[in-house]
């Protein structure tokens, strides 16, 4: 491996410098308002959410896992939302350390990606995911699925399908909140509702869906999504502390109803 100044600096100056003691500068409101928001950095991934959730409650992921069943449809908006949900399912299957479920989910992602003409760019990723799942390399699987999600996003942007990127991202977030609220509603007291209370993320996603072109907004499912996001945003914004049980129940029913309408879920579990 090459010896670069960065590497040497990092090795020799790795001593942690506590931030305390440095001059305590503070960001201004304008600096925070003007901060750059980029979807690939500023929006948390399902992997980060499930990782944090797992640390708090060690849920039985295999019990919770209800893979989205892709519904045959030619509605590209619906396919994009299904795709986002499947990506979230894939991350959950990784938390469950269920290699077969990861492989099944990846296969479904590839099928949906093909319908959106972006499967060519992710075929190799699908093979890597299958290999990592066989050898139980969970950290590598997270990175590879994350990269697959990003490749789909970039390919959709390249073919001028940015509304589908927004819908896939929204589908993924809805699925995360559905699973998180399910764990809370099941009576697990170890999970803080703080993880579920994401008003900033909800309002960002809501604004992006509201700004979709008119032809995308004609889809009844996109209208349902808007309604779901409005409900979630309102529930999450109404409290500065813990979400009350009634709000958690409302989130469960709202998100689950939408998930079922978009993709259907495996009712056998």
């Amino acid at each position: 491996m090459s010896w670069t100044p960065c590497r040497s600096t990092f090795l020799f100056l790795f001593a942690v410098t506590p931030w305390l003691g440095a001059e305590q500068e503070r960001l201004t409101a304008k600096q925070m308002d003007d901060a750059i928001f980029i979807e690939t950095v500023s929006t948390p991934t399902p992997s980060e959410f499930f990782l944090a959730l797992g640390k708090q409650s060690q849920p039985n992921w295999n019990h919770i896992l209800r893979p989205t069943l892709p519904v045959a449809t030619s509605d590209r908006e619906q396919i994009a939302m299904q795709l986002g949900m499947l990506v979230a399912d894939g991350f959950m299957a990784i938390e469950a350390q269920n290699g077969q479920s990861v492989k099944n989910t990846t296969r479904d992602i590839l099928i949906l990606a093909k319908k959106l003409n972006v499967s060519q760019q992710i075929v190799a990723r699908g093979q890597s995911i299958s290999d990592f799942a066989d050898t139980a390399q969970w950290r590598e699987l997270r990175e590879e699925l994350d990269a697959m999600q990003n490749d789909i996003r970039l390919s959709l942007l390249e073919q001028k399908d940015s509304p589908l990127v927004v819908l896939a991202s929204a589908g993924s977030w809805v699925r995360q909140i559905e699973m998180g609220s399910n764990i809370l509603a099941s009576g697990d007291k170890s999970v803080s509702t703080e993880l579920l209370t994401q008003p900033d993320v909800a309002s960002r996603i809501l604004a992006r869906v509201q700004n979709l072109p008119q032809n995308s907004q004609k889809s009844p499912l996109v209208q349902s999504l808007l309604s779901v996001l409005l409900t979630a945003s309102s529930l999450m914004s109404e409290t500065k502390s813990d979400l009350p049980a009634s709000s958690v129940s409302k989130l469960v029913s709202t998100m689950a109803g939408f998930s079922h309408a978009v993709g259907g879920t495996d009712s056998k579990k």
Partner: protein
Amino acid sequence: MTAWISILFSLLASLLISSAVETASGLPNPSPLDWNSSDQSPRRLALEMAAGNAGEGYQIHDGFWSGALAKDAPVHIEVYLFAGNDYRFSAANVDFYSQLRLKIFDAWGFPVGNQYSGDSSCSAAGISVIQSGRYFIQLVMSEGDKADTCMVYSYK
């Protein structure tokens, strides 16, 4: 004449074989993030720093910010972090004489976390998140000319 042709053919064949062997043995390990180790881009340098955290169990997120950073013109990037997770942010540029600093601020604008490297063309900072929510990453170049800079993050 036939002998010369034969020698030339042998030379050519051995060159081709050795080149094929070298290519096969020199193949980089498969990386989910597809960064090329011979590339001197800011992203490659930032990813190289982030990859150093893998031994501690950090996984790299496949997303990045990149842009031109000018001296004393800080850039702020919004991120959303979850309580219970540890995050490390790494930034770099290819102007090795520049001084880059990366800092983390909370939703109220106060500095938080730890800085992991001194003033150089690359910088890193980390945080163990106690409260989920919005955070801000500040990138400042205190020395050097305007340079393309990249930031990535990893988490565990």
